[in-house]
């Protein structure tokens, strides 16, 4: 993490974002919507990567933060008529807030115990959503009305149903997460998080209260997941329990593993690839989850560094 590589770094990442921006003008409608989804999911994955890749905390329950944003924004927009901008903000706060609450308990464990505890918390959240069926409509989900997803700015109306608005807002959210990550990595805080991942005992004996730092990382991660979830609700108009299920916790792990744990653009790469792989597979079979399983096993066995991680090891050592 030295300062010598600022230029190529900026070039790569800003270039990537620019590329994504220009992509919207050439994509057919189907892929346009897909990319919108992918960018939001990549934002979710980037947040997860902060936890797994940079702080070394393997959480198996990240979907609960995505769901917090989803339900927070969705229910507020639908039930109390909160405007989309405020709902988005609320979703982010829900994600961060749940992360804080869960972290205060879960971060007292580490390693395998932490994995199980996060898995259990996520599962409990999913079950609670089903239990409070009256408010959340459980598995069936809530369909948001089109009017609740329109933001009146006075001089213009921002319609979250509109593809252009959706794409660019999703891009904005992803960009914020990606650039936020890069800023974090170059900051003193980022350095501490990496230290915690590398050698937690040493970090403690350098005077760091590692519990507090892990909690910070978890909250940032939860906020990013919450922002993705909130956007999902507002843009696609559906708030359902499936997004809180274990599936979504495992999927994000898979995307990050595939793309490259501990790399900035890895999550995007992994999300794009896996999204299209599952799409293609589901055209042929309803058991597309088989691929999820296969990929997980193969990645862990043969390719744990992921695509961008492998690239970094072989050719491009300055990739963050």
């Amino acid at each position: 993490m030295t300062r010598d590589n600022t230029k190529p770094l900026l070039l790569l990442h800003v270039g990537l974002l620019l590329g994504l921006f220009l992509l919207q003008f050439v994509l057919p409608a189907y892929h346009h919507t897909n990319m919108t989804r992918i960018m939001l999911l990549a934002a979710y994955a980037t947040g997860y990567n902060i936890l797994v890749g940079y702080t070394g905390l393997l959480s198996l329950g990240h979907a609960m933060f995505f769901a917090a944003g989803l339900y927070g924004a969705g229910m507020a927009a639908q039930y109390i008529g909160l405007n989309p901008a405020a709902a988005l903000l609320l979703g982010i706060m829900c994600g961060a807030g749940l992360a804080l609450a869960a972290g205060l308990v879960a971060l007292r464990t580490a390693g395998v115990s932490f994995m199980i505890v996060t898995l259990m918390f996520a599962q409990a959240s999913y079950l609670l959503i089903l239990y409070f069926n009256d408010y959340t409509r459980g598995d069936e989900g809530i369909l948001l009305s089109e009017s609740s997803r329109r933001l009146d700015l006075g001089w213009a109306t921002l319609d979250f149903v509109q593809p252009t608005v959706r794409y660019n807002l999703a891009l904005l959210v992803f960009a914020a997460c990606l650039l936020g990550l890069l800023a974090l990595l170059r900051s003193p805080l980022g350095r501490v998080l990496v230290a915690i991942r590398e050698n937690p005992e040493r970090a403690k004996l350098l005077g760091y209260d590692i519990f507090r730092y892990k909690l910070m990382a978890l909250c940032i991660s939860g906020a990013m997941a919450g922002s993705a979830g909130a956007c999902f609700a507002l843009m696609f108009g559906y708030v359902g329990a499936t997004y809180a299920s274990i599936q979504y916790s495992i999927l994000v792990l898979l995307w990050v593993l595939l793309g490259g744990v501990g790399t900035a653009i890895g999550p995007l790469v992994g999300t794009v690839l896996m999204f299209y792989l599952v799409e293609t597979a589901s055209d042929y079979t309803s058991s597309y989850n088989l691929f999820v399983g296969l990929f997980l096993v193969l990645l862990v066995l043969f390719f744990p560094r992921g695509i961008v991680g492998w690239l970094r090891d072989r050719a491009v050592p300055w990739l963050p």
Partner: protein
Amino acid sequence: MSLGPHLLLALLEGTVQAFVLALTALGLSLVFGVMRVVNVAHGTFFMLGAVVAWFCANLVGDHPTLGFLLALALSPIVVGSIAALCDVLVLRPLKHDPEATIVATIGLLYILEQGTLMTFGPDARPVEPPIQFRLLFPWFGYAGYKLVVVGASALLLLLVWVALKKMRIGLVMRATQFDSETAQNFGVPVERVYTGVFALGAMLAAIAGVLVVPVQQAHYLMGQDPLLLSFIVVIIGGLGSLRGTLAAAFVIGLSDGVISVFFSPTLAKILATLAVALVLVFRPQGLFGARQA
């Protein structure tokens, strides 16, 4: 039905649940105890046992007793072999690293579940119990086969206990658990012991599946609840403590049965899930395990 009989029914159900759970959880506990890894795919072995039982019943046709006995013999062999294969192909190359193993077994869970979906199909299919008789209580009738389940589980638990405590195989396992390096120096083939234990754990779960399938139905997702409950039992009982596992199985089995009958199954699951998390955080040695320094 008034409260008393309702409670009796709940307790009966809970007892059956407890014995089956003890068998299933024992498999998970052995694997953790000896190999120090958590097998998230454990529930699928339970499910595969039940599915094989269905195939046996179908094969034999009109003789449910024969089908049942065939399943009791065949299921452990089939499922044990699958498990052994998983260990050799996937877990051994990972050197049984705890975190990597959890991720890999999640992958195995998906593969096994989806594989079953593709071959067995998405429907729940019933299996005839080997014997049909009803116990007539003054308030309700109770399926007599469930007593067979209890009896068979108890017998099997006893057998496993004897094997572990008295026979050489138990000694070998305990040596490997205690200090695998020293065991290796004494000529214990640690890697093979691991595969054996992994297979044994799967076989216990498979037999539990065979026993239970006449009562439930065979379905490709039926391993999920037993997995969660086994987790709870092993963690609350103390990872690696056999006695704790058995005690916890009874507590959990009975309470899950009672809560499910009197309140909602979802609530029971929520409480169970939170219990696992909280025990892991605040009392990681469980209720019976030894506190590590």
